[in-house]
């Protein structure tokens, strides 16, 4: 293996800094408007459903379902090329938001649409990343 690290988010980007800070407590946050109940994801500072409300951060359960996925077999990225084949997937969280992530620790040939998954935090300095693995039932 090598020392090349997975690309990490910018922790000072204004809309997403609270989202990433919450990952240090192993919490996956989404936002909901106090006025019109609109769920906002990715995070923002304004409600997209009304002009009045304030967005409240809520912690998702960490459970979700694979909406769709692909197995990546070619990448020129210095980190990801060493993971091939790996799974990227859009995960529908049980609370509604759809998140792009990886399904890990699971036979990639067994990944399928509709598969139940749960969060599996990948630890980094200053941030944890919400990856997913097959749900334990």
């Amino acid at each position: 293996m090598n020392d090349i690290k997975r690309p990490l988010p910018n922790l000072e980007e204004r809309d997403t800094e609270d989202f990433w800070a919450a990952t240090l407590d192993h919490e996956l946050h989404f936002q909901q408007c106090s006025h019109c109940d609109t769920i906002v994801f990715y995070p923002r500072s304004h409600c997209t459903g009304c002009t009045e409300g304030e967005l409240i951060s809520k912690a998702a359960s960490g459970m979700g379902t694979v909406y769709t996925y692909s197995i990546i077999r070619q990448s020129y990225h210095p980190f990801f090329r060493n993971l091939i084949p790996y799974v990227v997937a859009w995960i529908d969280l049980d609370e509604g938001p759809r998140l792009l992530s990886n399904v890990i620790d699971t036979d990639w040939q067994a990944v399928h649409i509709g598969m139940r998954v749960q969060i599996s935090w990948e630890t980094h300095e200053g941030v944890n990343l919400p990856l997913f693995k097959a749900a334990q039932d």
Partner: protein
Amino acid sequence: MKQSRLAAIVGIHEFRDRDVMGELSALQIKAQSAARALADAGLNWSDVDAIYDAGEGGGMSGLNISEYFGIRPRVIDTTAVGGSSYQFHAAHALRDIAAGKARLALLTYGSTAHSDRRAIGVGGRAAGGLHPADNLDGFAGSTLIANYAMVAQRHMFDHGTTSAQLAEISVATRLHAMRNPDAVRAMEDLEFLDIRETTIDDVLNSRVIADPLHLLECCMISDGGGALVIAAADVARDCRKKPVWIIGTGEATRYPTMGGDITTSAAVESGAIAFAEAGVTPSEIDIAMIYDSFSITVLTLLEDLGFCDKGEGGSYVTGGRLRFDRPSEGPALNTDGGGLSSNHPGMRGIFLLLEATRQLRGESTAQVDNAKLSIAHGNGGMLGSRHTGGTIILAAD
């Protein structure tokens, strides 16, 4: 319904080289293409009073491109929405000409993506970008191809679409490319292996890049460019070539939503608007120039534009129906060879308009007899997440 005859495409040029060996800049490709397109119309730089530019030649493009070309436009539009930018530009040119703000519009594109060895498709997106959406997604190491592959995967799950059906799109497009000397030269210059007509098995036997998409379902990465001149009706009548009229335009966006259907694109909205404005239906279209970044892009867009119902795209494309020599079975697809086999330097939208125009002039290398109506639909951004749809419907004089 009476169709609009307010503005027409009167000059076109597609830059021939797909590998400039690093010896030309994007700006030079834009300017050389513009001069040829103006000459094609029998016009000159000084006739241009409206400039449309997606900014690929550098920042402050409305100003800098005007100086570079040596023109003094009174309409400046720098809409930049990815590969569909040129559909948006054509729509805005019609609008601006109809409003009396402009009489001669110039659209140009230039790119050295191949010379720059930019890995457009499999490079992995950099994390830490300024847009919050990218800052959330970047860690997963998705690729552009995977973005589209995830649409295909869901399309297969929801509708039973197969890889063999998707391969029909690649096969028809390559058939058309083999008739186009510029496309053949492009494949040679880009060192395609085994340049010939392909079969469904050829596509299925090419290696998988991101499941379920195979290599031969992915567009090339070329250098290239082109230019398009759009004129008001009275100017168009005096040009060298027959005018090709812009009779309908539509614009839309789409981005991820909770519970949203990834297999449906912005073309649903942009197509409906354009067809309504043109007063024609999909069954009347002779030429379908549909953005073929990947096979699944075409399948999805054909459905969304109304050539068949959602989910029926797989059976619709089966049996060679998209070939140029089967006009009784519906429109011919991407008769220049498409992004899959002729020209894709990153933003293909302008080439859709160029070939759509060539067909209505009778100048294509895969000419459909008596072609009267073309559609050119561009998809900008990424089909599987956030993208724009731009639809243009063109009519022969």
